[in-house]
């Protein structure tokens, strides 16, 4: 029996889903090896992980709480990558969005929640968007690489936040902790259910995904983003304003990452600190890639990644297997999805014919 590869002209949605699912399963099988070598039982470990991520209302709430910023940073990366704008700066944009929320929402404005919350979100969106628009302008004017600019800006932003929370923004009531003044109650995102941490940011993320999905398929802007992303020369020739379209993408991308920061400040912590995000911005890249840059897929992959991390924490408490296993699962899933994308481009045909007969 031999096999051969043929280029595929079109990959169906069903096939894409199958490949993603298979990639996840293969990744879990691969991670079983280190679990075994650590002396644990993979079945028990995975069972505990699933239980830890989805086994109770509390677990589910923790998972979705963790997924909320990942959905938004994942969307930020997905929309930018589609236009071939390589935004690696979601982490920094998240912090700037959070900063804007604190600036607007910690007493500067006093509005009822129905006005206050949208104001805080718009401020965070615009601030995050600006953080991406500026590198894009620099790229267009001077040809500077946006990967480098956005990546390095992450460090600039986090150090800047550190300076602020130890300086002008420092909460005098924080007993010395480097954290900002808290948001006023009107600016805080309501919880979805009492006594659980998940908040309205989750709804914002899901709605954002739906809007993006509709935008790509149904709107002129989505059409233009696709054209610019897939063939810039042809788009320019056809009269699509390439630079303006890129700036719109930059604003949306940075804005979504900024919203993730708003969600963390206004939905979870209530104040800004330099450890607000454990790398949600970088994980957003993985989330977007796992989803094949599809907006709806991003929601699913964000929940998956969040579940792995939350589940691994709980599993590690019960078994003594390190929770670093979560990083391993996510990294291997990404590798498996990248390998899987090969099967979306090629068809493997098996045949029983004898070679040379």
């Amino acid at each position, binding site marked *: 029996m031999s096999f051969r590869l043929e280029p595929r002209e079109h990959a169906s949605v069903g096939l894409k889903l199958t490949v993603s699912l298979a990639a996840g399963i293969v990744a879990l099988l691969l991670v079983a090896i280190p679990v075994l070598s650590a002396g644990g039982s993979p079945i028990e470990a995975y069972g505990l992980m699933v239980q830890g991520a989805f086994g109770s209302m509390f677990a589910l709430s923790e998972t979705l709480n963790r997924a909320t910023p990942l959905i938004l940073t994942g969307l930020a990366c997905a929309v930018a990558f589609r236009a071939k704008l390589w935004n690696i700066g979601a982490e920094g944009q998240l912090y700037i969005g959070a900063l804007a929320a604190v600036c607007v929402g910690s007493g500067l404005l006093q509005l009822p929640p129905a006005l206050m919350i949208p104001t805080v979100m718009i401020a965070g969106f615009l601030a995050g968007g600006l953080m991406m628009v500026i590198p894009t302008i620099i790229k267009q004017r001077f040809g500077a690489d946006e990967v480098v600019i956005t990546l390095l800006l992450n460090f600039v932003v986090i150090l800047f936040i550190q300076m602020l929370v130890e300086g002008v923004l420092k909460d005098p009531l924080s007993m010395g902790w480097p954290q900002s003044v808290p948001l006023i109650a009107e600016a805080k995102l309501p919880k979805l259910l009492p006594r659980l941490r998940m908040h309205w940011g989750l709804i914002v993320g899901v709605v954002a995904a739906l809007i993006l999905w509709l935008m790509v398929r149904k709107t*002129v*802007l989505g059409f233009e983003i696709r054209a610019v992303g897939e063939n810039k020369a042809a788009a320019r020739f056809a009269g699509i304003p390439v630079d303006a379209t890129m700036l719109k993408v930059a604003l949306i991308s940075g804005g979504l990452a900024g919203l993730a920061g708003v969600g963390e400040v206004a939905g979870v912590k209530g104040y800004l600190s330099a450890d607000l995000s454990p790398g949600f911005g970088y994980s957003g890249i993985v989330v977007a890639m796992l989803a094949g840059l599809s907006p709806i897929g991003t929601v699913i992959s964000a929940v998956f990644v969040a579940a792995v991390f939350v589940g691994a924490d709980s599993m590690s408490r019960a078994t003594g297997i390190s929770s670093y296993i979560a990083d391993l699962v996510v990294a291997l899933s990404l590798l498996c999805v990248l390998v899987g994308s090969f099967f979306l481009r090629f068809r493997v045909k098996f045949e029983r014919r004898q070679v040379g007969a």
Partner: protein
Amino acid sequence: MTDTPVLLSLTNITKRFGPLIANNAISLDLHRGEILALLGENGAGKTTLMNILFGHYVQDEGDVLVLGDGGLAALPPGSPGAALKAGIGMVHQHFTLAENLSGLANIRLGTEPLLSFGREGDARAKVKRIIAESGLDVDLDRRVADLTVGEKQRIEILKALYRDAKVLILDEPTAVLTPQEAEGLFVVLRRLAANGLGVIFISHKLGEVLAVSHRILVLRGGTKAGELVTADADRRAIADLMVGKAVAEVVRIPALPGETLLEFDGVSLHAGGRQALSGVSLKLRAGEIVGLAGVSGNGQSGIAALISGLAVPTSGTMRLYGEAVAKASPRDFVMAGVARMPEDRQHDGVVGTMSVADNIAIEDVRSPAFSKMGLLDRKAMRERASAAIAGYDVRCPGPDAEARLLSGGNVQKLILARVLEREPRVILANQPTRGLDVGAQAEVHRRILAARDRGAAVLVISEDLDELFALADRFVVVHAGELSDAGPSEGLDRGTIGLMMAGQARPPVGIAS
């Protein structure tokens, strides 16, 4: 020629891509010492058939039989390795050479184990012998990157012969050659055939097929339309076989030039750090076709960029409908009724991963015809695409098919449908029929002439003088960024134009430089 043994035999090869039947029960025999031409329009299934033969694709039905030690034997499908081993050599339209290696290294590449020392001498001797026998003279020690296109092609042929090919397949070998180089290739092919090689020559150019082949197999729409001996063949009959209907002669009526629609007045253009155009003056008048001749790279792309709205003059004035153009904006030009056909239609003309419908609507997507309040009207886009597919004979599975799946000729028809349906007043046709077959060429010419008769001002930029003579009412020649005065095409002969293209003769009236 058919008395020699059969080297290769294809029996009832069928290949489907989804609903499209690319090859429908095609059979052919190739004899030793024979040059068989595979002739057909773009999309007729020539390349698919050869890709099956060479194992790149797997046929759904049928067999590839090759003469071996024990007579004709079927090749395992889908195995280029087996095809190579059986003595099939293929020279692709796009070369597969390692540019940073020498010619000799490229020829040896893949034929020897990774660690082999001291065999270069043997290899060189063998290649030298092949060169002596075939006349494929080329410097084996130069880096491939430094060779001309014609020389690279020779290396490709040598590569196949070095592997003891019994059958040599050439896919559109003359597309990249100058007429002289093509003539040289034909001499080599005849010699190789005389030495016993079987050659399959894929082409859509009638003239060269008649010049070089012994037998002709005509494909049309994936089926065998006819098979004939070249010596008895009639040019007209073959053309009809290819397109399946009589090719209508393009008739033209004399031009009735009207007002000037687009004018270059002393235009200079700096692009890419050099002077692309200097002091160019030109008028495009309604109802008239101006043909722009010139050796590639003498300023054509500058003129095209200006009329496409991709650039504005560095100095001088470009006037569209009497008003000076101040801003480079492809969109403004589209809106003003300028139809633009890009030179590199695959790269600049279409977004390959978007659908045919998307690509037809792409210039107009913001207009009320295709969108309302920023929302796309998919239904209108699809209807327009269906009409265009029918009206311009774009061969594709449907409006939702991705544009990258279309052949070059069909991409050009798609672009024609996109730009001509708007009833443009000014048309830029940049290399409008490059790479197109006879039928498609006549169709494009007919459409351009019809647009002229409707009152459009047309500039045709072409490297094909035949095309310019067929279309142009007036001729201009560009050389080193300068333009000759536009003279009427009546009374012009090729010799004069050739000299002007080489910069050796000035037009009757000098121009300001």
